[in-house]
């Protein structure tokens, strides 16, 4: 920007009268105090900004994020355990229900069986009773028949005796017939 010649005092020993550098401006010791002074201020400011504000804040953010991630993972683990638990409970309920159903079916079967047994027993008893009755009736009939046979036999015997010209002794005939039919 320096287009017109500068005075020696303004330019210093490192810049020629046209504002161009003489040699390396890096080696111009006239400027060292200025550069070092402002550098130190800059570094101190950056150091304070970093150590007081930026770095603790970023460290806190990172720690918080790490914490959140850890918590979320733990929560996920928890939920997974709960899901497994729920599945187990479901399976258990299912098994219980199945065994209950089996029990009920067995009960019903037993009930039906016992009813059936009862009915069969009843029917058997009825049949037995009927058979006994019938037998009794048959025995009566048979007895009746025997009696009739004796009467008929006595009558026939008496008649025969008379027909043969004998005297029908009722008592003798009766005892004879009784003896014959008893055996």
């Amino acid at each position: 920007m320096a287009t017109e010649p500068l005075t020696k005092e303004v330019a210093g020993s490192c810049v020629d009268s046209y504002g161009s550098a003489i040699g390396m401006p890096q080696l111009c010791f006239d400027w060292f105090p200025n550069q070092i002074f402002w550098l130190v201020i800059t570094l101190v400011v950056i150091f304070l900004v970093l150590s007081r504000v930026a770095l603790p804040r970023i460290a806190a953010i990172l720690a918080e994020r790490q914490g959140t991630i850890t918590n979320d993972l733990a929560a996920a683990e928890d939920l997974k355990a709960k899901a497994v638990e729920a599945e187990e409970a479901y399976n258990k309920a299912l098994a219980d229900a199945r065994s209950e159903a089996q029990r009920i079916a067995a009960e019903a079967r037993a009930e039906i069986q016992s009813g059936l047994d009862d009915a069969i027993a009843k029917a058997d008893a009825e049949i037995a009773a009927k058979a006994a009755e019938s037998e009794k009736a048959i025995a009566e009939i048979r007895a009746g028949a025997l009696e009739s046979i004796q009467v008929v036999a006595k009558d026939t015997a008496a008649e025969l005796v008379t027909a043969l010209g004998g005297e029908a002794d009722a008592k003798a005939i009766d005892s004879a017939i009784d003896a014959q039919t008893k055996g």
Partner: protein
Amino acid sequence: MATETTAAEGSSLVFHPMDQFIVKPLFGDGAVGMFTITNVTLWLFFAIAAVVLLLVLPTSKRAIVPTRMQSVAELTYGFVYKMLEDICGKEGVKFFPYVMTLFMFIVCANFLGLIPTSFTTTSHFAVTIPLALAVFLTVTVLGFVKNGAAFLGLFWVSSAPLALRPILAIIELISYFVRPVSHSIRLAGNVMAGHAVIKVFAGFAAVAVISPVSVLAITAMYGLEVLVAFIQAYVFTILTCVYLKDALHPSH
């Protein structure tokens, strides 16, 4: 970079590649005293502003899910923190604000220097030498405070044959004292050389026939300088970490 475009006096090509490094007062035309507000002051303060813009403002919301700029701040933090922790171990972590200050200042100053017509503070030895000397003094004082005389074991290579050890000690001693020199000149030299080369190419652009080539060359150099700006900040910081490690664990 180029604060002046005094291309030609007359018809011949005139190069002033170093004029961009001239320190001058911002207000008035007086001489540069210690407290004069100069272009150095301006661009150093821009570096402070850049640090605040990068690390303080984007993190003000403290979002769990970061915005882009907050991510940049966090990644920068993580980058330097991991570098320091990897090299120095847990003990080195308490120097993190110091190392971070160096890294942020250098990286911001380097990139600000890449803005055309800006002033590159880190191209000056007056800036890099205090930085390197500060590291050197910190490491030396810290080494003796933490380890006492055992810090001298740094120069006594116990794994070498006994006869070689005095010679190695001399070499180690020299290399130790050369550290601040190489540390500072590496940074300023790289930055200054790149900027000066760009300025030389810019001077050639005054000739119409060469100017396309010149513009291409400037573009290429600029790309290289972007790399250099970051790499030199990284190198400066990682060397600081390595030197700190020597102070914390002086044994080889």
